[in-house]
């Protein structure tokens, strides 16, 4: 009697239905044929006649196949739906497999979506202004110290605005100014900016009420008392009433007329706000800022420009560079050593963040790849379970394509479920990130899951489906027909095992790269926290201020400062007060040329050092140690022009191994006219720019000699200074109606600010490295236990022949560790190639830091041992008798 199953399979064209369903149909048709055949035989027909009758039952096989396809599947859509339903059924009957796969994917997809949303908002999206690609940031940098924050002086800005041609308009923005709103209920401190009249039109901002600045309100040296307020202030204090326009506001004891309200969504994202959480509530015309009348050397503005139509960013950058060089020639005293540059505004906003963000996106992408590898491993394990059926189907032809389709459908269903579970996860991860991340980085932006994030997750779901469905599918297609039949027993499994081993090796490699990366960041951060800033930041408050316009001579200014100091000392709990020209960690600096007696060569280019003017109490207030000589004191008044203090870096640079006390220097560019100045004391270095930037040579001169117009006050309190901040600002402003206070900070906050972003990136990367470690562990565990299961017979045989538990353990661990060491080797090579990309994020740690590499490899190896332990223990408990009966 013929094999009716094979007969039907041979005749019936491929059905586009699930594998199990096709098997059922073939079996049913075979039964029908067999029945007809039997009936004919019992009726006395010959075998060939019976065979003919059985065949006649089906007439046209092609049509039958078509009809069945149409009947079973309905349309294409219901056919796919069938595949999907089939996949769901399978998952339902294997809840363990489903849960592990879906959770793994949910974790990876959720993480990816959250990080993508953050990275997108911070670094990828274009700026929310009119034609954002045409906006450029124009910067003046100290050529020798590009790490200093670039600021431009008002006079330089006015010249650039008039004399360059690449820009249709150019605007200047002041540092953040803190003003007190009084006279309307409780006093409130508002962050404000002074901007030139071009600012709002350049960005395309339309007022929510009233109007924005007119050119006439921003004429040089003709301040006008108008203010534009933020939408949030309007809401908070004026109940969104349109009556606010024309009202008078008392800000820092001066009266301003409200002329307009900015739209609710408006935020300026460029410098000086880039990377800060400051909410600007009041906008003033630039002309009303006291500093606009100051000298060319006082750099305090940020400049932006909109390209003239037809100009390219490169042309504009070139013109700005040449303009800067010309300025330096024309005004060497103030501009020599400074260079100008222009770059797209977007770059200024995101440049600092871009690398960090790409790093995080890469890390989370790695984790997704690892999750895909785990799911592919699970799918492979499941394919192994069905290997006989697979082999038969492939041998009978037409099955491979559908098997592939079904595996991919299974992948897709898993990925879609993972995506569905991952989205809520993304929502919470994002909330956590925004709440716990650095304020400066995250809280000033509009970050939320939106259509872009959904689209992105859909894309990664699709990619995940392909990535996790493809390895098993590829395995099946590559395997070919003959081999699969021949290997229908154990061999096929061995082939699967090779793919699984490759997947695990890949996972271990990825995990190692992430571990090395996070190790490097952790080590950098440790180093950073160990850095001594050179002063004691606890219980210190800083307030930047400005001398009143009436105080012009050094004597007048010194006297104003003394009054400020007295008023501040009257505030309870204030221990000491000092003033300095440039505060550390505020990103501002001022340099001077120096000629060192006996060291500098006349006529040769001069060295450049940091120039500070400080009151005598500055060093005790900041707790900067005196290392040799003496400090200047209250008696070193305006006539004490011949003395200065130097820091350690300067002494080391010019007088290595010598006592600097008594040495003489000249300051400034014009040497002949400058007097000799004698070093009277040596003080400790401080980290002026940030904890991660080396101190530079620095000199200090008595404040009385050169009382700058805009001193920064430093106030040391006996206890927590936070509650005193308002009283302290009030005390400063009480000196005169036109004395402002701005940049009011607790010094601890400033120190913290310099490390916060690093901490955030370090924590994020470490979290992802840990997840990678965990995923790799799951992968190793899965592969090794599968291998143990398949070798149960062999293990049993060995044990029956006298192998000890130790030998078996050794065998299993050996197999696991072979995979892991190969993975660690590949991962180390990849890490060698990749870590240099993050060198700018490292601090005092080389990208090839051996400790980070060794620690990562050891952690991974230990974890792998742990993952091998359970299957290894299971192997030693194999009962030889049971194992030998085992037919797997």
């Amino acid at each position, binding site marked *: 009697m013929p094999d009716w199953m094979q007969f039907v399979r041979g005749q019936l064209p491929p059905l586009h239905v699930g594998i199990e369903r096709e098997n*059922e149909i073939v079996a049913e048709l075979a039964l029908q044929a067999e029945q007809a055949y039997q009936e004919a035989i019992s009726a006395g027909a010959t075998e060939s006649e019976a065979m003919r009758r059985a065949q006649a039952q*089906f*007439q046209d096989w092609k049509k039958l196949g078509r009809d069945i396809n*149409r*009947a*079973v599947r309905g349309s294409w859509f219901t056919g796919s739906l069938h595949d999907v339903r089939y996949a769901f059924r399978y998952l339902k009957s294997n809840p363990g497999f489903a849960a592990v796969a879906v959770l793994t994917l949910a974790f990876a997809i959720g993480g990816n979506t959250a990080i993508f949303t953050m990275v997108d908002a911070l670094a990828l999206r274009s700026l929310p202004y009119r034609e954002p690609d045409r906006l450029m940031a124009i910067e003046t940098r100290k050529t020798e110290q590009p790490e200093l924050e670039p600021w431009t002086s008002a006079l330089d800005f006015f010249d650039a605005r008039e004399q360059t041609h690449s820009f249709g308009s150019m605007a200047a923005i002041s540092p953040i100014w803190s003003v007190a709103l009084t006279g309307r209920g409780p006093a409130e401190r508002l962050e404000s900016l002074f901007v030139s009249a071009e600012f709002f039109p350049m960005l395309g901002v339309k007022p929510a009420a009233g109007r924005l600045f007119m050119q006439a309100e921003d004429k040089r040296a003709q301040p006008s008392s108008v203010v534009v307020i933020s939408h949030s202030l309007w809401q908070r204090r004026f109940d969104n009433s349109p009556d606010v326009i024309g009202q008078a506001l008392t800000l820092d004891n001066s009266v301003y007329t409200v002329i307009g309200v900015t739209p609710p969504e408006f935020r300026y994202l460029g410098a000086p706000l880039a990377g800060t959480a400051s909410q600007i509530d009041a906008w003033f015309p630039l002309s009303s800022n006291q500093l606009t009348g100051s000298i060319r050397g006082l750099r305090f503005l940020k400049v932006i420009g909109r390209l003239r139509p037809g100009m390219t960013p490169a042309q504009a950058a070139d013109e700005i560079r040449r303009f800067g060089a010309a300025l330096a020639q024309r005004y060497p005293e103030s501009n020599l050593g400074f260079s100008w540059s222009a770059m797209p505004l977007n770059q200024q906003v995101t440049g600092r963040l871009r690398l960090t963000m790409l790093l995080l996106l890469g890390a989370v992408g790695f984790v997704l790849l690892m999750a895909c590898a785990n799911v592919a491993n699970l799918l492979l394990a499941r394919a192994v379970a069905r290997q006989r059926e697979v082999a038969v189907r492939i041998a009978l032809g037409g099955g491979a394509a559908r098997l592939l389709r079904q595996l991919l459908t299974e992948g897709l269903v898993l990925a879609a479920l993972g995506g569905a579970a991952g989205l809520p996860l993304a929502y919470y991860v994002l909330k956590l990130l925004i709440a716990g991340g650095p304020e400066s980085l995250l809280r000033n932006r509009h970050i939320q899951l939106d259509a872009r994030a959904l689209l992105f997750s859909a894309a990664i779901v699709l990619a995940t489906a392909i990535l996790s469905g493809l390895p098993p599918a590829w395995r099946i297609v590559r395997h070919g027909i003959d081999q699969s039949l021949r290997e229908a027993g154990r061999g096929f499994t061995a082939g699967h095992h090779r793919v699984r081993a490759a997947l695990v090796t890949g996972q271990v490699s990825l995990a190692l790269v992430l571990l090395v990366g996070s190790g490097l960041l952790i080590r950098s951060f440790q180093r950073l926290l160990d850095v001594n800033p050179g002063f004691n930041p606890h219980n210190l408050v800083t307030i930047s201020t400005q001398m009143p316009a009436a105080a012009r001579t050094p004597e007048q200014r010194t006297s104003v400062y003394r009054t400020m100091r007295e008023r501040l000392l009257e505030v309870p709990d204030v221990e000491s007060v000092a003033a300095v020209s440039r505060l550390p960690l505020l990103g501002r600096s001022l340099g001077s040329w120096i000629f060192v007696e006996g060291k500098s060569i006349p006529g040769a280019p001069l060295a450049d050092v940091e120039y500070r003017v400080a009151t005598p109490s500055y060093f005790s207030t900041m707790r900067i140690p005196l290392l040799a000589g003496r400090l200047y004191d209250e008696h070193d008044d305006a006539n004490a022009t011949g003395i200065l203090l130097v820091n350690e870096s300067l002494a080391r640079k010019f007088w290595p191994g010598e006592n600097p006390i008594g040495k003489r220097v000249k300051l400034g560019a014009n040497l002949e006219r400058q007097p000799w100045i004698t070093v009277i004391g040596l003080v400790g270095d401080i980290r002026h720019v940030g904890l991660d930037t080396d101190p530079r040579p620095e000199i200090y001169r008595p404040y009385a000699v050169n009382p700058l117009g805009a001193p920064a006050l430093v106030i040391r309190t006996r206890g927590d200074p936070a509650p005193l901040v308002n009283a302290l600002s009030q005390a400063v402003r009480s000196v005169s109606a036109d004395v402002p206070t701005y940049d009011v900070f607790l010094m601890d906050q400033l120190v913290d600010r310099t490390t916060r972003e690093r901490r955030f990136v370090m924590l994020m990367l470490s979290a992802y490295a840990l997840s990678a470690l965990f995923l790799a562990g799951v992968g190793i565990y899965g592969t090794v236990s599968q291998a143990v299961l398949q070798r149960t017979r062999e293990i049993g045989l060995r044990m029956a022949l006298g192998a000890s538990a130790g030998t078996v353990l050794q065998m299993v661990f050996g197999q696991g560790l072979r995979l892991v060491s190969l993975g660690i080797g590949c991962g180390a090579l990849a890490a060698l190639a990749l870590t240099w990309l993050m060198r700018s994020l490292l601090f005092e740690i080389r990208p090839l830091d051996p400790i980070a590499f060794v620690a990562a490899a050891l952690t991974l190896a230990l974890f792998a041992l742990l993952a091998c332990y359970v299957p290894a223990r299971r192997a030693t408990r194999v009962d030889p008798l049971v194992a030998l009966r085992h037919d797997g």
Partner: protein
Amino acid sequence: MAATDIKGSAEMIILALLEERPRHGYELAKLIETQSESRLQFHVASLYPMLYRLERKKLVEGRWVEKAGERRRRFYRLTPQGRRTLADHRRSWREFVKALNRLTGFSHA
């Protein structure tokens, strides 16, 4: 009669045959052949696709059953929805026949 009606009637025949008890494909084919005195001969070419369609529409339900001493076969039985559909079919046939009788004068009533 329009094609849909023929298909509808073939469906009705199968549903009606399954109303009494579950049957397998070969039995259905035989029943149709004998009960209609070979006038309605169902080829396998149309019977199985029809069963699969009814199954997809959830009017019948197929299940592999192994009875003692017999081959493992796929038995089809009527679902509640199939039962309702059969009742609908019957009602409209009855109405159709009634109308036909009234028009042609062969009424018994």
